[in-house]
C-alpha cells in the first residue's frame, strides 16, 4: 500500500552473502496479508533462499496472477521487476517473458484458486512446455480475497468456516504437474521453513518447469477444525519423503550420511541436491513411483511432502524451440531484419 513505508534501517550485524547483500536487500514492501498468513512465511523462505544462493535480485522476474498469494511478489525482492497479471493467467505471461529473455530467473507465485480453478489450463500447459521457471502454488484450499469460498484443491469432506462440506474431488497440483511432464515437483508446508528453503533453492537452480506446491494455511478462512489445510491438520498429517540439502557448485562434498540413506542429484549448473531419504521405497527419479506414492498416501489422508520428482537432465522450452543463446529482446535490426535486397528478391518471386 502506498501509505505504509518500510523503514530502511539495517541491523549492523546482519550477515552478508557473497554479493555483500543482507537478507534485507531481498525483502520487498510490508505485507498487507493477515497476521499469521502462511503466504508470508513462504515470502520469507523465498527471501532466505535467494539470499543464500546469492542471486542478484534484479536478475529475477517475479510473476503472479490474482489473489492473496499473487499479491506477495510485492513483499519480497524489491529490486526485481514484478508483474501481477490477470487471474489464472500468470503461466502465459511467464512463458512470454521467459521467451523474451532467457537469462533472467523466473519466479511465479500463484494460489490454488489462481492455478487449480480459473488457471488450470495455463498451469498444465506451462508444465508440459517445460518453461524454465520456479512455480510456487501457495495452496490454502480457499478463496481468501473473496472471503472463504472453497477452491478446487479443497479436499472432499473438508469443512468451510461456515460449516459447509465440500463434496467435489480435489485437484492435486503435484500429481497434475507430474502428469503434465514437470521436471521438478515438490510439496512443502509454509510452517516448515527448514524443508521449504532448500526446496526453493533446488527449484531456482533447476532448468525446466519446477513446481512447488506449498500448503499454506489461511488464518482467516481455513484454519479451523474440519479443514484439511489448517496448521494443525497439516502438522499432524505431514509425511515427508525426504529432507533436502542444496549445495552450490563450489561447495565441497561432505560425507556425513551412511550410504543408502542419501541420494545425490547434480543439476545442470553443477549444483547438487542431497536427499536424505525418510520414506522407504520412494525414488525421486521415478515419475510413476512418485505418482503412486503420492496417491496411495493421499488415500490415507496423509500429505506427502519433500522433493517428489526431479529430472536434472531436462531440456527447457528454449531448447525445444532451439532459440539463440542471446536473449531475443536484445537482438537488433542487424540480426532481425532481412533487408531491402532480400525484399527485392521476394518481390521478384511474387509475380
Amino acid at each position, binding site marked *: *500500500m*502506498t501509505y505504509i513505508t518500510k523503514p530502511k534501517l539495517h541491523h549492523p550485524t546482519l550477515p552478508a552473502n557473497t554479493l555483500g547483500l543482507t537478507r534485507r536487500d531481498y525483502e520487498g514492501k510490508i505485507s498487507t496479508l493477515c497476521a499469521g498468513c502462511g503466504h508470508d512465511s513462504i515470502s520469507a523462505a523465498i527471501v532466505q533462499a535467494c539470499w543464500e544462493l546469492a542471486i*542478484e*535480485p*534484479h*536478475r529475477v*522476474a517475479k*510473476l503472479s496472477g490474482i489473489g492473496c498469494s499473487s499479491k506477495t*511478489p*510485492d513483499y519480497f525482492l*524489491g*529490486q*526485481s*521487476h*514484478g*508483474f*501481477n*497479471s*490477470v487471474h489464472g*493467467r500468470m*503461466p*502465459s*505471461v*511467464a*512463458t*512470454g*517473458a*521467459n*521467451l*523474451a*529473455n532467457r537469462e*533472467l530467473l523466473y519466479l511465479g507465485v500463484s494460489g490454488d484458486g489462481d492455478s487449480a480453478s480459473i488457471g488450470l*489450463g*495455463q498451469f498444465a*500447459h506451462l508444465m508440459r*512446455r517445460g518453461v524454465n521457471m520456479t512455480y510456487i502454488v501457495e495452496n490454502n484450499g480457499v478463496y481468501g480475497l473473496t472471503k472463504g469460498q472453497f477452491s478446487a484443491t479443497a479436499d472432499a469432506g473438508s469443512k468451510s468456516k461456515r460449516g459447509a462440506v465440500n463434496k467435489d474431488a480435489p485437484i492435486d497440483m503435484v500429481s497434475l504437474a507430474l502428469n503434465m511432464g514437470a521436471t521438478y515437483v515438490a510439496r512443502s508446508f509454509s510452517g516448515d521453513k527448514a524443508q521449504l528453503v532448500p526446496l526453493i533453492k533446488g527449484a531456482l537452480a533447476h532448468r525446466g518447469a519446477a513446481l512447488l506446491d506449498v500448503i499454506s494455511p489461511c488464518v482467516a478462512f481455513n484454519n479451523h477444525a474440519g479443514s484439511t489445510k489448517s496448521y494443525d491438520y497439516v502438522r499432524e498429517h505431514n509425511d515427508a519423503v525426504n529432507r533436502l540439502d542444496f549445495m552450490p557448485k563450489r561447495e565441497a562434498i561432505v560425507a556425513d550420511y551412511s550410504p543408502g540413506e542419501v541420494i545425490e542429484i547434480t543439476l545442470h549448473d553443477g549444483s547438487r541436491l542431497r536427499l536424505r531419504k525418510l520414506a522407504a521405497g520412494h525414488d525421486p527419479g521415478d515419475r510413476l513411483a512418485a505418482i503412486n506414492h503420492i496417491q496411495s498416501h493421499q488415500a490415507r489422508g496423509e500429505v506427502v511432502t519433500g522433493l517428489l520428482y526431479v529430472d536434472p537432465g531436462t531440456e527447457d522450452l*528454449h531448447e525445444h*524451440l*532451439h*532459440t*539463440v*543463446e542471446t*536473449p*531475443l*529482446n536484445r*537482438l*537488433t*535490426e542487424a*540480426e*532481425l*531484419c*532481412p*533487408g*531491402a535486397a*532480400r*525484399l527485392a528478391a*521476394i*518481390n521478384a518471386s*511474387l*509475380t
Partner: protein
Amino acid sequence: MKIGVPRIEAVNDFVVKFANVNGSGSASANELFARSVLRMGVPVSPRNIFPSNIQGLPTWYEVRVSERGWLGRRGGVDLAVAMNPQTWDQDVAEIEPGGYLFHDSTKSLPASKFREDVTAIGVPLTEICAAKYSDPRERQLLKNIMVVGVLSALLGIEPEVIAQFLGEQYKGKDRLIKPNLDAFMTGLHYGREHLGAELGLKIGRRDAVGERIFVDGNAAAALGAVYGGATVCAWYPLTPSSSLAEAFDGYCAKFRVDPASGRKRYAIVQAEDELASIGIVIGAGWNGARAFTATSGPGVSLMSEFIGLAYFAEIPATIVNVQRGGPSTGMPTRTQQSDLISCAYASHGDTKHVLLFPEDPHECFEFAAAALDLADRLQTPVFLMSDLDIGMNQRLAAPFRWDDARRYDRGKVMTREELEAGHPFGRYRDADGDGIAYRTYPGTHPKRGAYFTRGTTKDADARYSESGPDYVENVQRLLRKFDAARALVPQPVLRRAEGKSRFGAIYFGSTSPAMAEAIDALAERGVALDTLRLRAFPFADSVAQFIAEHESVFVVEQNRDGQLRMMLVNELQIDPARLLPVLHYDGTPITARFITAAIGEQAGRAVVRPLKTGKAA
C-alpha cells in the same frame, strides 16, 4: 441460344468462376489459371469462396479479369467452369445472360439442366482422363490442369506462359513438370481441335500489371512482422488467421536462423487458446521483445481481459485481427469488417485501442511493421485490422518496400546507463507531456528502475494506490497518450473529385478496390464524390475536417451496424444525420456494383430534386 440475348463478347474484362469440390486438388490449377492471365500482362483478382471443411464440400474460385485494373469483386459470372455436380444448379443460375457454361460432357445431362441464354461448352474431361491415366489420383489432379489447357485454347492464353510458370512452380520438383505440362497440352490441343469460336471471351496480351506483386495479405503481414523485428509469435489456430502465423514460421525459417549456430532468432508458440497467446505476447512485450499474435474476432473476445491489462499496465502488444463474419462462430470462412467496436474498445472499463486498417497486402506488410513500432512507442496494444478478403486471397499490390536505414522505434526505454547517470525514473510519470512514460526492461539495473506491473490502480511511481486522484491522473494521461497516437498512425488518404462535390465518402480496408471502381462508375453517372480512406484509429484531425466540408458523407463499410459510423459520431461529435451508412454484410466481399447502386440512389435523390416539391426531397 435464346433469341434476343446476345452472347457476351469481351476482351480482358470478365469474370470466370470455377466450381470445385474442396480437397480435390483444384487450388493449384486455379492459381495456375490466374497467374497465366497475369503473365499475359492483364490484371486479375481471384477470390476463394470456401466452406469451413476439409474435404467434400463445394468451393469456388472466382477470377475477375480486368484490363482496367479493377481488383474488387465485380458480382455476376460470365463463364462458369462447373466441375461440381453438387452445385450445378446454383452455378448455372448465377451466369449472366449471354454468358458461358464450361462443363464435363462425359455423361450427357438433360436439356433442363442448361439455360437457353447461356452457351454451353462441353468437353469429355473424365473420358479423356480415364483413357490417359490409370491412377485415380492422377486422373483427378491432372483433370484440373487439363481444364486450364482447354480454357487457354478458348481464351487465347499463350501456352508458353503456362509452360514457363509450371517450370518455376515445380522448380526442384522437376518430375512434376512433365505430367502437368502434358495434361495442359492435352487440354490445349483438344480445345484447338474440337472447339472453335464458342467462347466470346478473350485474353489479349497487354502491359497492365507493371511491377506489382501477387500475394495474400496474411503472408504479407507475416513478412512485415519479420521485417518489423517481431521475435515472439504466439497464436491459436483460427480461420482466417492461421496462415499468417504459418507464413511467419516459414519466413523466419528462411531469414531468422543464425547461420553459425543454426539456432533461431525467434520463438513461435502455438498456444492452448487465445488467452494464452495474448498472455505470452504481453509477457514478452513486458520483457522487451517484439511480440505479436494473429487471430480473428472470436479470439479477440477471449483476449479481452488481457487487452485491458496491456492497456492499463501499458505493455506493447501487436494483434493482427483477420476479420471474418460474426457474431459467434458466424461465417468463419466469409469476410466482414465487423470487429471495429470490439477491438477499438476491447475489455472492461474505459479503454481505447489503436487500430490500423490495411487496404491490401502491400499495406499489410507496411502496417505490420508499423504496428510493432507503434506498440513500442505507445506502450499499448495495437490492432492490425485485416480481413479474410485481404488475408486469404492473392491480390495484386505495389511491391513491398524497406529502407535499410530504418531503425526500429523501441519507444521510451530507460537504459542501465541512463539510470546509472541518475535520470529520474517513475514508471507512470508523464515526463514529456505526451502521456507516454518511460519504462525499463526487467534486469536492467541492480538498484534502480525496478517497478511492479499490475492491472490495479497505481500512482505515477507504480505503487499500489486506490486513491481517486491517482486513478484520475493516470487515466487522463492515457487519454493524452491516445491523443498523441493520432499523429503517429498512418494518415487518411484523400481523393478529390474533379469538380466540387457536395458528397463525401469514407471507407477503409478491403473496401478499397471496390470503392475505387465505384468512384469511377459514379463519376460516369454524374455523381462526383470526394473520398477519404481511413487508415487508422484514433482518427486524424483531417477526418472531422473532411466531414465538415461536405453536406453528406457516405460511410461505406462491411458490417450490419455501421460500426465505423458509430465511432465517427462518438469520437468526433458528428451529427449522425450527416453520415449516411452504406452497409454490406452478407459475407461476400463488397462490390463496386453495390456501392454504386447504394450511393447512386441516395445521391441521385439528393441531386435531382423534383421542381415542384423541392423541400420534400
